[in-house]
């Protein structure tokens, strides 16, 4: 097993495309995400209702090396401060195969 940083990011779903781009442009090759996330935060309730994705979030999970994380940290911060949402960082072990 190998030590990694795990990022869990919750942002408005409509921003997912931009976050994916940010990750790709910064050499993060491994990431996962899903939509349909409801929730509440500074910008009020996101109830997942409606014909567009205006009130729904997406959740990203990214396992990356510490360097990778340090490289995108500030860019992520800027992204989040504009788009809203949260980023939780923790340590994980990757079961290498």
């Amino acid at each position, binding site marked *: 097993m190998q030590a990694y940083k795990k990022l869990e990011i919750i942002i408005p779903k*409509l921003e997912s495309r*931009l976050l994916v*781009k940010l990750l790709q442009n910064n050499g993060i090759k491994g990431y996962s995400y899903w939509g349909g996330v409801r929730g509440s935060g500074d910008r009020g309730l996101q109830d997942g209702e*409606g*014909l*567009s994705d*205006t009130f729904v979030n997406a959740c990203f999970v990214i396992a990356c090396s510490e360097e990778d994380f340090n490289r995108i940290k500030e860019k992520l911060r*800027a992204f989040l401060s*504009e788009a809203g949402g949260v980023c939780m960082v923790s340590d994980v072990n990757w079961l290498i195969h």
Partner: protein
Amino acid sequence: MNLEILLNNFINPTILFFFLGLFAVWVRSDLAIPSQVSKFLSYYLLFCIGLKGGAELSHSGLNAHIFIVLAIAVVMALLVPLYSFFILRRRFNLFDSAAIAATYGSVSAVTFITAINFLQENEAPFGGYMVAAMALMEAPAIIVGLVLADMYRQKEAQPPKGEEPGASSIRMVVREAMANGSVVLIMGSFVIGIVSSDSSVATLAPFTQDIFKGMLAFFLLDMGLLAGRRLSALRQASGFALRFSVLVPMANASIAIGLAYLLQVDKGDALLLTVLCASASYIAVPAAMRISLPKANAGLYVPMSLAITFPFNIVLGIPLYYYILNQILS
């Protein structure tokens, strides 16, 4: 032809299903049309309306009259957000003002479709090209809204969002608005309706026409549910916001009616044009604003257009505008 049409409109099953949706929210029912089905229904309606519009246009052909109406449509789509913005700025911050202005300058496809349904029930003809008018009116308001927001924004250094600095640049947002799913679908179906032979369009009729009314009724039930769920957000809204949501659409409708009168637009087309001007977007524009003006309060502009302006238009507005147009147009 009298105010009876208003009552008739009211007890029309499609409209009643809208109220059933509101009622379900009011009694806190768990009734909810699954979101993917919702989307399917909205696409279905655009598919049918586009195809029908195209097929009709291929019969009637083009003429000067058509270009006049399309020109009015575009002018109104640029004008409405402009004056709305300055009205709004008196009470709202920059971002909210720009977002609401864009919302009201753009159009609601469902209101438009409900108006078409209304015309069909009253056996009033209308031009297929009005579908193009609707599509043309979708994007301009977004551009105006963003340009206004940009112009008045403090020229502070903005934090870069994503990698590309222009990630949410106006150009990109506009491109996205024009490539918006609804626009592409209705315009695509419209073009297919134009180029396809009558007989092949006719073979699609059981799907596109016969069950259309039922699908619309079902979809309005969903709209009632969605509108109902947004109503509660209005409790915090100012009286100004509420008044805006009814009065500005009426003002827009009045201007449209005036222009239709001046330029002697056909009755059916005039109604649709009026409805387009009076309606506000609650699908495409909010999605665009959420990205390009994330600081604007979606909990304000969506409820205004979805929970006030939309019901106002489909219940009272459409028959009212039609009544007036009937009085003034020959």
